[in-house]
């Protein structure tokens, strides 16, 4: 078999789409660095927000996607949907870690500390732990319909918990002491900054969706390879 026949039209489309989204991310960074004005309070440091906030959106959108995929997996009983769900958890974990890292780096110059029990950061931290738990559970179960069901149930449980965690952590902070973080309130934000931010969120979510799709297809492909090897084995 020649190498080029290994690429299906779907592969080619995924590749082109991926390149396009990567270029969009780079373009957005250019906008973030050169178009958005300098913040009066924070200076240029605030620009990390254009990476931090979209990552956080992608991380939390992944938990929604995980829940939706889990419900579909329970209804349709399809292994392929489970592959996408696992991809979602992996991408979600990736973006929660990115959010935590950028949040921490941003916190050092603005709050004077690498970590503070800010409600959003804390929720992200817990979300990262839950994604990790999901992936561990997935890894420790034998493949098959049983695993699909178990992981789908956990996916729904995680999504149901996110708003409760967020609410509880917010109250915990506000009842204790006033928030230490200077909030980027919507009304006080420059329209240029807001526009850049919203564009960043859209770009990042698209990119995350593409990552999930590619990862899901990867897992399905691995499954097909295993299936093919069984068929060869059976024929002998």
């Amino acid at each position: 078999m020649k190498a080029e026949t290994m690429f299906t039209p779907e592969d080619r489309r995924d590749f082109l789409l991926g390149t396009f989204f990567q270029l969009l991310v780079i373009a957005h960074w250019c906008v973030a660095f050169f178009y958005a004005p300098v913040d009066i309070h924070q200076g240029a440091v605030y620009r990390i927000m254009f990476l931090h906030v979209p990552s956080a959106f992608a991380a939390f959108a992944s938990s929604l996607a995980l829940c939706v995929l889990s419900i579909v997996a329970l209804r349709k009983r399809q292994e392929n949907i489970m592959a996408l769900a696992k991809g979602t958890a992996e991408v979600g974990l990736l973006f929660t870690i990115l959010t935590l890292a950028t949040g921490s780096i941003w916190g050092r110059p603005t709050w004077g500390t690498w970590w503070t029990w800010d409600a959003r950061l804390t929720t992200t931290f817990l979300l990262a732990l839950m994604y990790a738990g999901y992936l561990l559970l997935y890894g420790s179960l034998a493949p098959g319909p049983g695993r699909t069901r178990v992981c789908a149930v956990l996916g729904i449980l995680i999504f149901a918990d996110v708003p409760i965690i967020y609410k509880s952590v917010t109250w915990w902070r506000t009842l204790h002491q006033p928030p230490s973080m200077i909030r980027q309130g919507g009304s006080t934000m420059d329209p240029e900054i807001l526009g850049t931010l919203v564009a960043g969120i859209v770009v990042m979510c698209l990119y995350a969706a593409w990552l999930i799709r590619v990862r899901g297809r990867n897992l399905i492909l691995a499954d097909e390879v295993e299936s093919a090897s069984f068929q060869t084995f059976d024929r002998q």
Partner: protein
Amino acid sequence: MLVISNLSFQFRHRRLFEGLSITAAPGDLIHISGPNGVGKSTFLAVVAGLLAPASGEIAYLVDGAKATDRRTYLEYLPAEANGLYLKMDAVENLLFWTRLRGLKLDPNAAFAALDPWNLNHPLLRVGFPVEKFSTGMKRRLALARLELSPVPGWLLDEPLYGLDQQALSVFQNRLRAHLQRGGFALLVSHDLEPFRGLITQTIDLAKRSAP
């Protein structure tokens, strides 16, 4: 009547059996045969409802109509386990499983059920945890439970495992009585001698398995 039509099972990518159709009528003892690893135990687990088939249908017909839950009419005995609460005594185990079926059973009836299996000793039946039983005693208790269950269909996976000569003949008689009462059984067993004359049909899974 248990009707299995066109049943296939796939363990991930490995197909075990395909296009299996069996009808078990009252009085039938159907022997599932085939070499090791062909899927005999898996087949019984699928019929019991523990595993989902890849395709095909399993239905229990009552007066020609399909029952809503075939589990109401089937009792499963796995090969390497007996489904007993090991910390509890024999009578508690019997009472639990029969009450779960909706049968009101008093301890005396449980004693009577233990009697033919040589387990009806005052020191054995109450206050003696099942985990201290020998392999054969546990199997005999599981068979006593099977017999107490008010169901027509028995799914027997190596029922003779651990039984001594005396228990073996008890089981033979009980199985014969069950079949004469209008019950039926699917059987997986490596030792066919005790079932001679009772088996009405043999299904060779090796012929129904994937190429």
